[in-house]
């Protein structure tokens, strides 16, 4: 299990949400390896479980949800078996999270500088809030916050959405960060700011040699930033490949459909975008076998019965689909 190259390994993860309408099987056996220093894109439509997977890494699934089973190895330690006190030392320190809605994530009653300083103080990285303040200003400079000293003294409601996202990024960098999880970091800000934020993340990643997991539904962003891409559908990872390979040669029918549904400037005007027929399944009563089969035009009888497992069909290119059962000659 100890492999210096692999910073994070998720093994056979199951997460259920016990909601009023029934048990939602949100994550259904996810396996994923993240290499040290890479940028991995985690792509899928809303509700496919990408955020839940990432929150499981921090063991912060909101109440009706529970991790049913699985293992999450971080630097060779199974996070799911750690006592809560140890887990707390990892959150916001070794593993930092950049949230979707920076506006809702900041406590309205405290100056933003204080909120950036908090994790440093409680992780014992600095002696006092006074010391932390200097670091905060430094971090604000790193995230290119204009007038960092002044901004640190501001309250959240006095900052714009883009600035608040910078505050959250600064918080993420405040610890001894190794793994950075960015959960749709640009949905809440304007397009122009989006580019700035992504540039900033890229720059910081190189400077500090961070591993970045970018959770998004924006395929363009993934193509631009990521080394590898994992595509999720209805609680499963269906395909995992180096970015270029995936865009050039998608294998899973869902991924093919997904790429065909994206408009391209290079294509002529008369190219019709092809939507994927049907709807995302209800995960309280998920379809048996492959969860995609009701919408799949290549569905076979086996798809209804058996859940496909991930197979490496080309070097580094994994897919979970019965169409490729024979190709790789996988284990079972």
């Amino acid at each position, binding site marked *: 299990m100890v492999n210096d190259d692999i910073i994070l390994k998720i093994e056979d993860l199951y997460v259920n949400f016990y909601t009023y309408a029934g048990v939602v099987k949100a994550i259904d056996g996810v396996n994923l390896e993240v290499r040290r220093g890479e940028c991995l894109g985690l792509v899928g439509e809303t509700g496919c479980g990408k955020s839940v997977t990432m929150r499981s890494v*921090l063991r*912060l699934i*909101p109440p009706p949800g529970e991790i049913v089973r699985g293992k999450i190895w971080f630097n060779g330690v199974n996070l799911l078996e750690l006592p809560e006190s140890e887990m*707390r*030392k*990892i*959150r*916001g*320190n070794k593993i930092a*999270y950049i*949230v979707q*809605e920076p506006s*809702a*994530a*900041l*406590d*309205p*009653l405290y100056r933003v500088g204080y909120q950036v300083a*908090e*994790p440093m103080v*409680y*992780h014992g990285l600095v002696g006092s809030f006074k010391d932390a303040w200097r670091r905060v200003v430094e971090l604000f400079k790193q995230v290119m916050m204009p007038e960092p000293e002044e901004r640190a003294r501001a*309250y959240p*409601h006095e900052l714009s959405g883009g600035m608040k996202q910078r505050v*959250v990024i600064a*918080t993420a960098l405040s*610890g001894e960060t190794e793994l950075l999880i960015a959960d749709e970091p640009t949905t809440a800000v304007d397009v122009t700011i989006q580019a700035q934020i992504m540039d900033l993340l890229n720059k910081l990643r190189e400077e500090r040699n961070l591993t970045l997991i970018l959770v998004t539904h924006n395929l363009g962003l993934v193509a631009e930033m990521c080394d590898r891409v994992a595509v999720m559908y209805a609680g499963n990872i269906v395909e995992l490949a180096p970015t270029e390979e995936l865009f050039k040669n998608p294998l899973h029918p869902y991924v093919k459909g997904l790429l065909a549904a994206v408009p391209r400037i290079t294509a002529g005007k008369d190219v019709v975008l092809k939507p994927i027929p049907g709807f995302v399944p209800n995960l309280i009563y998920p379809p048996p076998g492959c969860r995609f089969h009701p919408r799949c035009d290549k569905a076979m009888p086996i798809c209804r019965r058996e859940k496909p497992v991930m197979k490496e069909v080309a070097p580094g290119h994994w897919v979970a689909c019965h169409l490729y059962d024979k190709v790789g000659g996988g284990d079972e």
Partner: protein
Amino acid sequence: MGDFKYYIARRLLTFVPTLLGVIVITFIISHLVPALPAKGAFARHMNPQTLALIKKMYHLDQPWYIQLWLYICDLFTGNWGTSIVTSRPILKELSIYFPVTFQLAILGEFFILVAGIPLGIAAAMRNNTKLDQAIRVLSVIGYSVPYFLLAIAFQMIFYYWLGWLPGFGLGRKPRVVYTGMYLFDSILCGDWGAFVDNFLHFLLPSISLATPGAAVIARLMRGSLLDTLSADFIDYCRMKGLPERVIMVKHALKNAIIPIITVAGLQFGGLLGGAIITETIFAIAGLGRYLVVSTYAMDYPVIMAGTFLIGLVYLIVNFVVDLLYAYVDPRVRLT
């Protein structure tokens, strides 16, 4: 803190019209009074000369706006009229009785917060358990109890029956009286015997007065804390790896208590009103009992002056509460 000063200034600007409103309402009510000597059935039996004289005395021969102006002038120059029953200046009597009521209300507010907030927190932390349900039912019972029932019950149990606490009147007068609020005076002059005695005398009245308010606060606190705990920023605090205790105290409780501040201020009015009943039962010589006695005696000038004073104090308390609110919540200062 520059914006805080601005906030104070702006809040003062709305204070003045409301104060004017309070004055206008008391003015209107006191001019409704059919029982004033020069009005209603009473006047018909009077000698016309006397009637004219009385009308002149009360400026009833002037148009209403002049009367209002004179009324305002009187209020600000301390000429609050004379009690019909005791023939003493009302302001002087109020200055004796009001501190007692104010002290009772402050003590009541103290018990409201001390009981209501922890109960609310406990219910929220043990959401959907037996304890939560018990607190919820207790809370409904608490705010359904009429002031007088609880006051009488307490008096019967702790005074008549068990004999643990005094059931009537004020405590011993402290050596020096500065404010008329004996609890504070005895602290100021270090007369601890008087302090304890006064505290014991005020225990039953203030607790019985505080119970309905505490029940309301417990409920609100529960709801507010549950809302806050499900907020995104609490979640983000966990992502930052803050200790649970820090999240609870510094972030959840501080945010949850904000709506409570306003309601606690509004409840001060309920305490001042409830004092009318509580003081009557515990024979406390405060403004409330003075008003009841005056009402039974139809001493209208006293009733109106007392009403105005309570309105004024309530206004000032809410002004202070709003400042406190703005102090805690930076967002308010901007709006």
